[in-house]
């Protein structure tokens, strides 16, 4: 934890090991207890560009469609998620 920011933090906030320094300059702070929580938040802020979908549509026009699987063949292996 960066010591120069620790002085102004309340004890409760100091318990969060991941502080986003950028957010220290605004009222809202981001407190994360683990790397995965931090990464999860980061992931929630990222969206795939719309251009991917458009490109994919064009590419798929040049592909032959996938073979349709016989219903019984997957039935042997299908596991419920």
């Amino acid at each position, binding site marked *: 934890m960066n010591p120069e920011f620790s002085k102004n933090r309340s004890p409760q906030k100091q318990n969060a090991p991941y502080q986003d320094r950028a957010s220290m300059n605004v009222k809202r702070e981001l407190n994360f207890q683990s*790397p995965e929580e931090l990464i999860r938040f980061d*992931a*929630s802020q990222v*969206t795939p560009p719309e251009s991917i979908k458009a490109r994919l549509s064009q590419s798929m026009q040049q592909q032959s*469609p996938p073979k349709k699987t016989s219903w019984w063949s997957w039935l042997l292996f299908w596991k419920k998620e």
Partner: protein
Amino acid sequence: MESLANLQQNVDTSIPAPGEEKASLPEGFARIYAEHSRGVYYLALRILGNPTMAEDATHDIFLKIYQKLDQFRGRSSFRTWIYRITINHCKNVQQTWHQRKMINNVDDAIWEQSEGHLDDPLRVLETKELGQRIQRTLDALPEEYRLLLLLIADEKLSYEQIAELTEQNVDAVRGKLYRARKAFHSEFNKKES
């Protein structure tokens, strides 16, 4: 979620006619894309560390998924299967990239492409800086730790599925995750020079 079987059977393979103004995916596949594109793109982004490469990779990955739909046998979950394709594809991209000795100069401007729609400019800046910091931290970690942290962050994956994706047992995953979290913590909180 609609069963995969229905999707495999009912994937509308009709392609929009040339000249249609709005590009669209076949209906069944569009649902697959809607459900998994975010996770695939983010995983590719943080593995490859470059939004442009991640965009290309996501396109290629979903094209592979479309082509290989008939090969999915249900031995793993569909998400696991998609992520395996994603991880293998990204590894191939990295290998090719290193072989060509391309220099990954991340232009700050291109990071803006990957941000979600945020109205508050300050929030956009925070998110961008946080994302860059997370990327730098992940890049400093061993590849195995990086992958484990990215996978465990996906709440739709269980430890068993992560073990399957990383080809090790659950105990090994737990042990390495403990070390990965420590390494991430140490790297993330290093004083920036």
